[in-house]
């Protein structure tokens, strides 16, 4: 019973908060640019709008195109249940394995790419090609980061690392790398640009170009949630939260504050990067990810040296 409630709690938490974070990032970006900018709740409006609109489906598409949104959303929702949020263990702790998480994301990506090819437009092809290219280059770096972080826990289970580790050099470097990975995975500047629809630069957008209405809403939702998941993981690594005791409320209050604050810090970080850095050419991304890989190696070495 406990677990069921936890599951529902987490699901609802992610679904409700995720768009907010995207809105927040946009807000911050505009702030840095000295603009007023759209409301923080704009993503919610977008989703509602999309749901209320009808959709157009290309005649060349097959059932792949139709099922993809559900697979994508199910993948991310599944992952939400695998990471610890409220307590030091995820609801499905006996399958909350980080490597598995990577594979599950791969599932959603796989189908998005297929759906993009399914439309038969060259945008879709371009998008899926680039998406697969970048993601496949992300994998090794990510793998190294996972190793270097989880080696000190002796297991790749996400549930184990909340609350029980001290920040070390290696974990800092790893978090740095993970941050860059997150930027790549959430298709943000400098790797990709969510705001453009210029053929030559878009990657993720190009894949979902043919989607409209509710399907698009699901996909966007998935994107928001995925981003939130990454933030939580990074937060868990850099700013490990101490055990909270429900006894004294002030403690609880400060704990909660800190809990949100660390997410906020990451959000600001992302916003800063988006503002400060220019979008890279596609083949510069190779170097970028190479750099991430090197970071991973460094993290690994630090982990081995025990610093």
């Amino acid at each position, binding site marked *: 019973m406990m677990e069921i409630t936890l599951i529902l709690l987490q699901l609802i938490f992610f679904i409700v908060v995720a768009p907010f974070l995207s809105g927040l990032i946009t807000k911050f970006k505009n702030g840095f640019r000295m603009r007023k900018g759209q409301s923080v709740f704009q993503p919610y409006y977008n989703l509602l709008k999309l749901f209320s609109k009808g959709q157009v489906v290309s005649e060349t598409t097959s059932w792949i195109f139709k099922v993809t949104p559900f697979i994508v959303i*199910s993948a991310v929702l599944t992952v939400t249940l695998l990471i610890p949020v409220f307590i030091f263990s995820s609801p499905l702790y006996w399958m909350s394995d980080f490597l598995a998480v990577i*594979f599950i994301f791969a599932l959603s990506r796989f189908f998005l790419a297929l759906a993009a090819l399914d439309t038969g*437009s060259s945008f879709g092809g371009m998008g*899926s090609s680039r998406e697969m*290219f970048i*993601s*496949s280059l992300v994998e090794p770096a990510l793998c190294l980061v996972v190793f270097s972080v989880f080696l000190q826990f002796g297991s790749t289970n996400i549930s184990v690392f909340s609350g029980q580790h001290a920040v070390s050099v290696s974990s800092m470097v790893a978090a740095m790398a993970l941050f860059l990975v997150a930027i790549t995975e959430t298709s943000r500047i400098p790797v990709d640009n969510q705001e453009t629809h210029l053929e030559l630069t878009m990657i993720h957008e190009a894949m979902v170009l043919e989607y409209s209405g*509710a399907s698009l809403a699901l996909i966007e939702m998935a994107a928001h949630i995925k981003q939130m998941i990454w933030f939580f993981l990074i937060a868990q690594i850099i700013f490990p939260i101490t055990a909270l005791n429900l006894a004294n409320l002030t403690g609880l209050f400060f704990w909660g504050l800190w809990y949100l604050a660390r997410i906020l810090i990451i959000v600001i970080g992302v916003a800063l990067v988006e503002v400060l850095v220019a979008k890279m050419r596609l083949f510069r991304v190779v170097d970028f990810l190479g750099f991430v890989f090197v970071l991973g190696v460094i993290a690994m070495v630090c982990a081995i040296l025990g610093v």
Partner: protein
Amino acid sequence: MVYIYGQRSFLFIEVILFKMFDFFPKQIFIVDPLSLFFLLVIFVVSLPSAIYSFGYLKGEYSSSKITLSWFLLVVFILSMTAVVTVGNVLIFLVAWEIMSLVSFFLVVFDTTHEKSIWAGTIYIIMTHIGTAFLVAAFLILHKHAHSFDFMSIKNACFTMPAPTKDIVFLLLLAGFGAKAGIVPLHIWLPYAHPQAPSHISSIMSGVMIKTAIYGIIRFVIFLLGVNSSWWGVLILILAVITCLVGVIYALMERDIKRLLAYSSVENIGIILLGVGLTMLFISMKMPYLAVFSLIAGLYHLVNHAIFKGLLFLCAGSVYKATGTRDIEKLGGLIKNMPQSAVYFLIGSMAISALPPLNGFVSEWLTLQAFFLGALNSIGGIKLFLGICAALLALTGGLAAACFVKAFGVVFLGLPRSNYAQNAKEVPLSMRSGMFFLAFLAVVFGIAAGYIIKLLAKVAAVVMNIDISSMSFSLNNFILTPQAGKSAYLSVPMLALVLVVMGLAGFVVYKLFGKGKPLIYKTWDCGYYKLGPRNEYTGTAFSKPFRIAFSFFLLPYHKTQKVRESFYHVKSFAYETHTTFVFKKYIYAPLIALVLRSAKFMRRIQPGSIHLYLAYIFLILLLLIMFMHKF
């Protein structure tokens, strides 16, 4: 007769026959869990392929050839069975050779193609060279054991000096590597596998190259016994290289069966990662990890057998339906042949290691093995294992890209030619063959916890250690790679959750979504007609990779413009190729060298009888001069 005693020392046939006794086998068969496991693999792939071939062969060949192919198929399967069950080195060799021979016949089965002859030639030559290495290794073993039987060899290996062991190991590695297609000995594989009829390709890729893995496990781990850690490291390095090379070439390929063949090279690499880890852990005295990583390797072995068999069968169906293997001419087949499409999709998902299918489980296990290895080792090995794992992950990503390309270009979008335009769904026999394997691909994913226990038994026998104390899964439901420590994975549960969440999404979609969608053309930027020529081709898809890995692929392209006037370009032709590094820089020079020296040697026989007489005279003089040297 008195003079006979004079020649007792030499050529005395009685003596000879007595001495020949130990030349002949006493123990013919050895059937232990390892053999049984490989038998399972063989039959799991062979049965559906056989069923499939009913439909496939009909109309392709004349009836007499069909009978011939059936005969060869049966011999092929039998020979593989023999390879994995015999208990005597000589008979193993014979079975091995028969297997190569029959598979060669099957590769050159389409005698009309010059290509298939060429492919077969490369194939058989490479295998024969491999066999030469094997013979050397076996005979060194025999020299120490004074017998060809496995058991006596096993006993002899305990007392074998380490340097000899190293030599034997290297010879075995080279010998079996040629068959398994370890880089750089993989050169034959992408030629030979596609040329055979598809059901044979599926058996060759699915099973035959696995017999080489069997050989490595049986001879190196089981008989020889690992004694120095550099063996494992060497195999790991080779395996990683194999993975990457295989998958990169697969990405570049536009012939669908060659693409699959290259991806076989990649998967052999992944399997070898498991085996190499096993050796490393054995030499590091970590029985639990050794068993675990061997499980991972074997698991991926059977998985690869299943989904690669499946994929080759699907490719065969595509070929049968469209008459071409060039993916740039295909497209949109999902509408004409929906079932085949589903099977191919399942195969692609499995080989891209997507949950909850079987490929996912075995790759996860392999990564876990790496993680645990890094966990329990120290210093350099830790980093080495970490980087190996990272490269494995890279391989996984590239493989996913490769199969997105394969499935997307072949089955999705618009048909690019009228090969694909008027394709028909393949007959029932073929579909049932594919269905069987697709079904297995799912089952081997879901039932991981159960299978892993069986594999543990096999591994235990291979390393003859007691595994009763080790546990790899909780009540056949949750995989516990760390035996109770907190790394878990429950594939059935994961599948369930995925389905539930998907349904939830669907429900939401249905509840709040707006009516039924409107069907319209793909958005074409106002360009009035969007046709197949506007689609992204497979070559275009793989272009980023081609550029990223240009240091290895050495791509080059030719462009030519035909201008009517200065302003108007009438036509523009562009073609690009990649250089096959190993072929160009290793094999071609080698062969050239051999031929050149042979041609040079040919000069000693110019046809002048006087010269010939002079030879005789000279050799006579020389021999007499150096008589006392002999």
